[in-house]
């Protein structure tokens, strides 16, 4: 399953729900798949994608989607424990797991060497979990996660087909657009 196709599928189903994207290609691909005010792009804060999403989920009734990565989440495994402790029903974490640090030279990550992030999540009291390897199954699980209470933790084994052009690096605009969309309601 290609990450970009999976990202397009997520956007098709997400409606107006907020989506937080991990830094690098995940942010770039979300921008290219469909730029919208409710995309929260990240640029430097590696490891904090799902922590941001947790803070959002605790502060809005809307369902929040985190598009995290295996390398980034490995940098902050404590985020999974905090999600398990808080149990936000409106949080869906998807981990794009390519089992490598893609941007730094494709070095194998710990998920290529025995670490099972779904089991980590289950050990942290997150009961709605899945590991998926094809787009059809991811679509099924994601649609269920949008309808049913979570927290959800979905590991999606993905591949990448080269890198897309870098999206605009405008953190202050990202925050302004995103935050305003909540204040207006």
């Amino acid at each position: 399953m290609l990450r970009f196709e999976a990202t397009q599928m997520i956007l098709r189903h997400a409606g107006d729900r907020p989506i937080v994207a991990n830094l690098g290609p995940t942010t770039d691909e979300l921008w290219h798949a469909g730029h919208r005010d409710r995309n929260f792009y990240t640029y430097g804060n590696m490891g904090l994608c799902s922590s941001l999403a947790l803070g959002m989920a605790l502060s809005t009734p809307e369902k929040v989607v985190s598009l995290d990565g295996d390398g980034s989440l490995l940098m902050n495994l404590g985020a999974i424990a905090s999600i398990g402790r808080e149990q936000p029903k409106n949080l869906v974490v998807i981990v794009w797991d390519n089992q490598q640090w893609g941007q730094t030279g494709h070095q194998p990550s710990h998920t290529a060497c025995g670490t099972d992030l779904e089991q980590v999540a289950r050990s942290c009291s997150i009961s709605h979990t899945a590991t998926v390897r094809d787009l059809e199954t991811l679509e099924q699980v994601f649609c269920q996660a949008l309808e049913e209470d979570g927290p959800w933790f979905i590991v999606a084994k993905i591949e990448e087909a080269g890198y897309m052009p870098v999206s605009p690096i405008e953190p202050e605009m990202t925050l302004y657009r995103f935050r305003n969309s909540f204040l207006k309601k």
Partner: protein
Amino acid sequence: MGVRRKAMNWAETIVESLKKWNTSLIAYVPDISIHQVTSLIDNDPYFHLVSATREEEAIGIAAGAYAVGRNAAVFMQSSGFGNSINAIASMCIPYRMPIPMFINLRGGPGEFNIAQVPMGRSTRPILDLLGLVHFTLDDDYKMDKIVDGAMKLCYANRQPVAICLTQLLHGGKLA
């Protein structure tokens, strides 16, 4: 006969100011010296106190709350500030996120642990290098005005502000 209001202690002063600035999500890593204030927060239904496993995670959680329109602050120790620097530098500053940071500043008079001195002493110079405003409270003289003014400045400037709380203020753990 008029009832004289009992003066608030330092912990109550912080809680009042957080409420005044609608700052209702508090992300923290526990610290014994500022337990007095975080326990007040924990017992007050106005707040949602979120335990993080590490201080950079606390910054991320607070930032997420702010991003959807809820003001949020963090509480930590100066050693934990060391753990959170990249979150502040690569996220709060470029996005312009106003996150009030309450920091138990170690390494000052009365410090008993050599390991707490380097990070405690370098916390404020690092804040200066990042261009962030900070205030240090050694006692509660004008504390309400300083904390309140720091919160106002934080939200006006849309950058983190640090309020450093020393042992002289909170009388925390000495050995």
